[in-house]
């Protein structure tokens, strides 16, 4: 067995679900040297790591389009406002503005019964305000629906003030039995498709928490 250090160009096969975070690393490989073989490696992070930049609105819009979204029922918030200009410019999307977030759920339920595919785009504060609407129009009507929720106050489970809405967001979803996915950057965006598929298979709402407050928002 031979340990390899610098000087060897490797095809690095990263396990499914893992993201290559390191810009440089010392790679310890114990293997028979074979330049033509793809070999699985464990990457030992020894250098600085940096999360990839945030979530781009084009990425999210593509996910909507790829999943056949017809309507966006929404109320602007600080996490998802960057989508607005793209959505309004898209002739295949109809935007329905609501005055309070509970209205979004019942509106979306009507759209679904009529055969359309809406997505609800609201902030976590409004999600909690719409609790009974989610229960009644979302859950009791078995409405397949993705809730894109701006995760105001998201600190990656860091330090929050006791009354920050972020402290209540996930427990709220747990209480309603609504599964959710977190997206923070473009690499996470495919979870939106997962949410759509799951909502349709299970005929119930699924949430996508958007944990990217300011990256790339100001345009």
């Amino acid at each position, binding site marked *: 067995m031979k340990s390899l250090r610098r000087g060897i160009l490797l095809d690095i096969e990263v396990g499914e679900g893992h993201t290559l975070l390191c810009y440089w690393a010392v790679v310890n490989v114990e293997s028979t040297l074979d330049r033509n073989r793809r070999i699985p490696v464990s990457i030992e992070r020894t250098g600085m790591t940096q999360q990839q930049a945030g979530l781009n609105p084009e990425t999210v819009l593509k996910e909507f389009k790829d999943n056949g979204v017809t*309507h966006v*029922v929404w109320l602007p918030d600080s996490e998802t406002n960057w989508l607005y200009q793209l959505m309004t410019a898209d002739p295949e999307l*109809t935007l*329905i*503005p*609501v*005055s*309070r977030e*509970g*209205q*979004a*759920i*019942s*509106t*979306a*339920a*009507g*759209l*679904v*019964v*009529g*055969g*359309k595919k*809406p997505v609800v785009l609201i902030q976590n504060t409004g999600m909690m305000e719409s609790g*009974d*609407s989610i*229960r*009644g*129009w979302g859950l*009791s*009507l*078995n409405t397949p629906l993705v809730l894109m929720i701006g995760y105001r106050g998201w600190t990656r489970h860091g330090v929050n003030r006791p009354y920050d809405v972020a402290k209540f967001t996930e427990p709220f979803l747990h209480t309603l039995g609504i599964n959710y996915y977190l997206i923070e950057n473009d690499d996470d965006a495919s979870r939106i498709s997962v949410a759509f598929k799951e909502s349709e298979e299970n005929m119930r709402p699924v949430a996508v928490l958007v944990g990217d407050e300011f990256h790339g928002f100001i345009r």
Partner: protein
Amino acid sequence: MFAAADMLEMFQRYRGNALVIPGRGSRHWNGISKIHERDIPLGDPAMGGHASFAFGLAEARPDEKVVLFDSEGDLLMNLGVLATIADLKPKNFYHFLMDNESYATTGGQPVPNATNISYSGMAREAGYPSTYFYDNLEDLAGDMEGILNEPGPVFVHMKIAPEIENLPIAMRVRWQTRTLDEVLRDVKAALG
């Protein structure tokens, strides 16, 4: 004021093929309607959502006439829906409001400012292109056909005689003949 049952009997003559969300009128409409698969008696999934649900359906199916029998208590919980409806202006949406000035199903307590609110005025100022107010059935009967032939959204504020319920919920007569799942299954099949 006039009786909801009488109003719905009259409406049935002009219903055509419209999708009907009967709201609190469901207890009467179930026995009056002749096209149950195009009726959507939802009961009360969550208060305040009937108008937005009916609006969503109208938006989804611009080829279908959608008629909602709303209640003032429900609408008051979600007044902002008037702005959304007036903004999108679905031409196929007919928003009838049964205003009995009370929360009839909880014993008849008055809604806030029960006798003084002009809901048709609210709808008009929110931007509905066509609004009406009726406190007698004869005038409404004379206008119903024309109302349903106008392009929507149309808002019709009706003063309806309250039917107060004081029995505990478990002792009330159940008017539903289908489950929610069956109602939605039937209407989706009817819509194709």
